[in-house]
């Protein structure tokens, strides 16, 4: 078995805010009928989190559940658990039309922490990131610069961002430039 490494091996940047590559993070793409009782039960048993509403993320003892589209969730669990969770989901949904895939190594994840985190993301995403419009548990799939990404807030000063691994280094560099000391407009 080869040694798993995340896209930037936990790289860090400190400027106007702190940016950290999250390291190995278990991520499971689950597609199916989100109203289905068996699917909902399987998701909750894997993560301890409730089913999220549209464009929301929920947090549980053993994972997080992100609403990605009307028929798609992203489950975040410990990296080492991802394969077992996929097996459990597949068993629970064996006779239903669905897809559960471990995409951990195909994605990158970053944490943006600091009072200016909203300002940094607002430089590249066409999203109203004011506190009135976007808060803890809200989630958006959108673009950052020209890259597809999804982000959500875990507390009042922290965002988590996911993107495809192939563009992870570019997004990290982009975020670091956007977070240069003294570069935040403080509009929000």
């Amino acid at each position, binding site marked *: 078995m080869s040694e798993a490494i995340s896209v930037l091996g936990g790289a860090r940047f400190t400027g106007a805010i702190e940016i950290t590559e999250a390291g190995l993070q278990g991520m499971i793409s689950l597609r199916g009928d989100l109203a289905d009782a068996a699917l909902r039960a399987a998701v909750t048993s894997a993560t301890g989190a409730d089913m999220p509403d*549209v464009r929301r993320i929920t947090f549980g003892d053993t994972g997080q559940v992100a609403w990605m589209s*009307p028929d798609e969730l992203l489950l975040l669990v410990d990296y080492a658990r991802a394969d077992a969770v996929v097996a459990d989901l597949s068993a629970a949904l064996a006779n239903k039309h669905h897809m559960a895939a471990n995409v951990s190594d195909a994605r990158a994840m970053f944490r943006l922490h600091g009072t200016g985190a909203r300002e940094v993301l607002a430089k590249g995403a*066409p999203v109203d990131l004011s506190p009135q419009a976007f808060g803890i548990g809200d989630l958006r*799939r959108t673009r950052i610069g020209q890259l597809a990404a999804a982000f959500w807030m875990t507390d009042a000063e922290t965002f988590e961002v996911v993107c495809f691994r192939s563009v992870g280094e570019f997004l990290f560099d982009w975020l670091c430039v956007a977070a240069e000391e003294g570069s935040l407009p403080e509009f929000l």
Partner: protein
Amino acid sequence: MLKLKCPACGVEAEETEFAAGGEAHLKRFGPGSDDRDFTDYLFGRKNPRGVHFERWRHAFGCGKWFHAARCTATLEVFGTYSARTTEPPADIVAAIKARRPGWEGFK
């Protein structure tokens, strides 16, 4: 700059989050159809100055296709609606008629 509301996920976002997919409500003519119908299906497109129905995809968002009714002259968006229909729904038609009383209707 257009602002569109994705009916699948409810986000109201600006144009750069979407991808345009051309004219909506095309009737497909496949192999075995009349040459003229097939040519029109492949290449013939409306190009109105005014009310137009288009396909859009929430490319950077939830990924779903939907339809939009808008004015090509003013960029006013009359509404967006599910792509699972062969003609504009009544509320969209009503919204267009309210803003364009002289509009000849969907055909």
